């Protein structure tokens, strides 16, 4: 199996605080890998380092066998950043936001028919085709997350990288997302995602990498529900419609 992501001894700092302290992370083609860990364990930093948004202070990173600084083939990657609630103020429709993802293929050129089709297809995959002309401000948290995932899928990626795709997402959207992801995985897409808990995605996960204080403390089969809940500092984000936005923090950290 060829290696899609290879991170070796990665260290990174935010300000002067070390956030990654020698992280090894390998993702092979077709794998679904979950990055788990408490808040502040470095999992989001690790995933942002993989897409080149956090510079590594030492260590190496290769994407599809190419060192990050020489990697140009971004159309092979679909990226779903952590959802921010801040609206930009200027209105934008669901379709306009999803089309932005396709720019990884069109770059500075004009979109062709195939590009428009890919955008419509991505909207259908997340069940948002009927909302394509609606402004994104009118969406719920879960629907917004589905839009961001459609934006990543519009490029028809080989590797999907997602930062907490299930955070603050209502149960209905979680099920849609799990279904979408299952379909992508069955088509051979490689997935690396940050999760707070395995939740409805559990059956899809091949391997879990658990971080604590910027170090890998577990790399292997996903911990069973009990073990996963027993992780120190674990946050419970329960997808009940009413108070999904407010995680109940029971962790020690």
């Amino acid at each position, binding site marked *: 199996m060829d290696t899609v992501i290879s991170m070796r001894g990665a260290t990174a700092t935010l300000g002067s605080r070390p956030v990654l302290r020698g992280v090894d992370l390998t993702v092979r083609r077709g794998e679904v890998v979950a990055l788990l860990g408490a808040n502040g364990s470095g999992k989001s930093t690790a995933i942002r380092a993989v897409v080149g948004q956090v510079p590594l202070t030492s260590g190496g990173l290769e994407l599809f066998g190419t060192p990050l600084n020489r990697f140009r083939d*971004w159309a092979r990657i679909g*990226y779903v950043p952590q959802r921010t609630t801040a609206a*930009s103020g*200027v209105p*934008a429709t669901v379709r306009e936001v999803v089309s932005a993802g396709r720019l990884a293929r069109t770059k500075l050129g004009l979109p062709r028919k195939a590009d428009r089709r890919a955008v419509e297809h991505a909207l259908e995959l997340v069940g948002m085709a009927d909302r394509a002309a609606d402004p994104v401000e009118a969406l719920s948290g879960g629907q917004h997350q589905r839009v961001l995932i459609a934006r990543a899928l519009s*490029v028809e990626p080989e590797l999907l990288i997602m930062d907490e795709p299930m955070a603050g997402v209502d149960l209905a959207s979680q099920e849609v997302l799990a279904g979408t992801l299952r379909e992508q995985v069955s088509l051979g897409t490689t997935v690396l995602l940050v999760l707070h808990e395995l939740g409805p995605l559990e059956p899809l996960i091949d391997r879990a990498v658990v971080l604590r204080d910027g170090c890998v403390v577990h790399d292997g089969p996903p911990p069973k529900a009990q073990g996963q809940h027993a992780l120190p500092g674990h946050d419970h984000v329960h997808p009940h419609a009413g108070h999904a936005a407010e995680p109940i923090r029971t962790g020690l950290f």
Partner: protein
Amino acid sequence: MELFSYAFMQRALIAAVLVGITAPAIGIYLVQRRQSLMGDGIGHVALTGVGLGFLLSANPVWMATAVAVAGAVVMELIRWYGRTRGDIALAMLFYGGMAAGVLFTSLAPNGSNANLLTYLFGSITTVSPQDITAICLLAGFVVLVTVGLRRQLFAVSQDEEFAQVTGLPVRLLNLLVAVTAAVTVTVAMRVVGLLLVSALMVIPVAASQQIARSFATAFALSVVIGVVVAFSGTVTSYYADVPSGATIVLLAIGVFVTLTLLAAPLAKKRARRAAGDGTRCTLEVPAARPTEDDVRV
């Protein structure tokens, strides 16, 4: 329509329409990136260029363009690197630019600060044929960038981190936005003045976003609003003998207020239509809590 027969008014109206197109066209990206006041900052810096133009007896429009572009590039570099003390650096740049403009103008052989006023607040009827050539060329550049690269600029302004991961040349596009904003400032300088430039970049956009639901509509509508207020403001200033820049800006604010008032019932109507397809709550609210057990103090 006697005003169309005067050459100076023809030039004034051409300049006004071009400003009405270009200022909101670049302004929408600035608003989207929460850099609404960037135009104001560039306006301050551009004054140095005007002063240099007087001092060196060069065309102030071209000098202002050169200095404003340099200033915008410096601002963008500060945004990249100097995040911690960025606001102080920007303040230095803005007020330094303004001060240098005043100083250079007073040093110029035939310069007085009265000349500066026409640049600070606009003096559309004194637009010369050379100015019009410069304004047309610069406006063409702005339209080319803001319309031709609208998809890319939208993506970069909407989610910079995501745009970087799509492999777009984000830094280059950011620089292009800054340079285009600087060029727009100098296009608008003669019409609304450097101190009011930012208003025409921001207010039509703010007005259009009251009722637009898509970026494409917001873009088109803000350009329409820009053209309408710039044109009617110039005509009004001719008949009422009032300064064009101030008239245009106040008209734009009038449009903003009108659209805001119109938007509230429109939003309500949309909400009602949206609620129409959904089903209503069927859960019953539990009866009021009995109060007899409450502890009295």
